[in-house]
């Protein structure tokens, strides 16, 4: 698909262009014919045509849960979507180690942590620790990386200090708890701190977690973002491309 040719997509239920979507929500009122009509109008306000309220049930006193199906009037023009995508060629383990060896001549020093009060280590461990993720061994298993996994609950200041002390080439930050966007705040604060301390330049700064994507990471001032399902080898390839130059 050519990116500039407008390409309007509608939701697909079981016929081209039917726009069918499913919406569920709770409204703070008890079930009644009026509540059903309220749900219908609420759905209509979202652009659903002929909304069908398939369920209306009291889910608490004074609260009603609804499931609605309806034909969405909306469409989305995918030709106008430009999303930054990580599209480095994946490298094999040997290529990674080889390039680091030949082009850099030393190990790449990585410092990783799950920051703030976030105690979720599984994600960052999956990337860094030997064991890896879904059969893909972690960065520790490569000859070319020297990995320092600081674990979880690491304050930004502590992370910055350790990165400096260890001469980090790259800092890998994980954020899993996202309630009320605390991951964004934490991430932005780290970038600010590193910048303020003059550490930001020359550092490859990676952001990862179940609600992170490349776009968000860039917005927050990181160099790349990695979301759910990331494999250590994805990260290895990215780092090599960044730190050892392109082929």
């Amino acid at each position, binding site marked *: 698909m050519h990116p500039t040719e407008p390409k309007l997509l509608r939701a*697909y239920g*079981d*016929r081209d262009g039917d726009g069918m979507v*499913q919406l569920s929500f709770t409204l703070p009122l008890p079930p009644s014919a009026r509540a059903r009509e309220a749900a219908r109008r609420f759905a209509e306000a979202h652009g659903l045509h002929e909304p069908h309220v*398939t*369920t209306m049930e009291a889910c608490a006193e004074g609260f009603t849960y609804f499931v609605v199906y309806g034909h969405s009037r909306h469409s989305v023009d995918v030709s106008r979507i430009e999303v930054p995508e990580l599209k480095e060629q994946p490298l094999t383990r040997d290529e990674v180690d080889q390039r680091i060896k030949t082009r850099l001549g030393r190990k790449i020093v990585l410092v990783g942590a799950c920051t703030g009060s976030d105690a979720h280590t599984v994600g960052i461990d999956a990337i860094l620790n030997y064991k890896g993720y879904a059969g893909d061994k972690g960065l520790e298993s490569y000859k070319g990386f020297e990995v320092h996994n600081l674990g979880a609950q690491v304050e930004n200041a502590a992370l910055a200090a350790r990165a400096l002390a260890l001469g980090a080439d790259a800092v890998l930050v994980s954020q899993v708890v996202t309630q009320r966007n605390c991951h964004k705040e934490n991430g932005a604060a780290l970038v600010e701190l590193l910048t303020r301390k003059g550490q930001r330049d020359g550092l490859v700064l990676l952001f990862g977690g179940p609600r992170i994507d490349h776009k968000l990471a860039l917005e927050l001032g990181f160099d790349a973002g990695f979301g759910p399902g990331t494999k250590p080898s994805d990260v290895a390839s990215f780092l090599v491309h960044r730190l050892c130059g392109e082929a």
Partner: protein
Amino acid sequence: MAQVPVDESVVSACRRHAAAIADDVQTYVDRHTTVGVERTVARALGALGADDQGAPLANVLVDRYQAAGLLGHGIALPLGRALVRGAASVREAAERLAYGPDIDLLGPGPALGEVRRSLETATAAALAAIDGARTDREARKAALPPAREPLRYVIVATGNIYDDATQTRAAAFAGADIVAVIRATAQSLLDYVPEGPTTEGFGGTFATQENFRIIRRAADEASREYGRYVHQTNYSSGLCMAEIAWMGAVERLDMLLNDAMYGILFRDINMCRTFVDQYVSRRIVARAGIVINTGEDNYLTTADAVEKAHTVLASQFINEALAHRAGLADAQIGLGHAYEIDPRIEDSFLLEIAQAQLVRQVFDRHPIKWMPPTKHKTGDIFQSHVQDALFNLVGVTTRQSIELLGMFSEAVHNPLLMDRYLSLKAANYVFSAARHLGEEIEWRRGGRVEQRARQVLGEAHALLGEVERRTIWDAIERGAFADVKRTRHGGKGYAGVAAREPGYLNPLLEALEA
């Protein structure tokens, strides 16, 4: 193995009752024919096509003979006579008889032997078409890894055959083994089969020969792409039961919904008509190597699934006995039943598992067709998905052969692409997570599960005895199945039944019966 105790002597007694019931039906069947049967013969022999109003040639032809009171001779007779008299083909013969000013009133004419001989080529071609499709299926299946049971059966039903084809491929992508295109609400009661591809149907898509081909193509493509044979199924049911069986046979459908009594009970089709039609449809299906799926699951949508569980089992014995009389092998007789107990009933899961296991054991050489909860589904799609999860668990635990997957949107609409995908995803998970559960379980002696199985078998036995005593005709009049009552001469399509005349000619059926 999660076996329930099955008293084989009771099972044998059930089979004896069912045999007697079926024999009684067969006596009637062997003496009658119907417009549907004769249209099937006409089509099979070559009377294809439709007029500019869409009325199929077979219909115009057969209706003329029925109106003339001559159908009892078999439509093959005038066709053969026309051939002897010089028609170039069955089709030409049929057109002449259908559209010509007069029909052949079957007065003195060519000798019967000559007429028979004139039809041999066409008959052989008809059989070859069926056999070819069967061979083709067998070869394709042999070339692909066998599917693991329960086979995952899903429906598509957009009303538009091209969307159905998209959905067929999508279903296969998501793991479906069997795709059924549900029929438009009205089709059962149409006394003809529409022609060509169709794009407008309510509640489903019309079954036409062209539509069969479109889906076959999509399914075959998917088979190739996913390295798994994707079965196609449709409905040999309603007033055109036998014709659709024929079309399904030659278009290489793999399964057909086909039941000896569904039309009577759920479509108010006359019972005389239905019994004759089901026999002929099954003769074709038997030859074609198609697996039928019977419709006892439906009983539990009109009758209570706890109280009337035994009627399902009783009916399965009758369906089996009738199918045997039509030459179907056990491996072709897919017996239907369903997970329809009110979910509010305590221990409903135990009652369901008892029934599923009982059916599995009683018909241990048959593919069992296991249907999901539908009646007690509501528009709460989340809860509905949970009901299906338990259903899936029973399916894999009791080793049902063919499982029609429940849809969380069951109470809402025909499944959307997404609904079907999620249903398959959930079934794949449950089937794998509990793969060997059935092998591990033993039921407590004398416990709830065992007792329930014993009770249902006992009640089925009693019912079959009663049906034998009263005959099935009378039993249906009294509402023995599905809580539905139908009279012997009521319902749709009775006018299409004709007593066979002496010398009734039907080379197709003869060949199939041989």
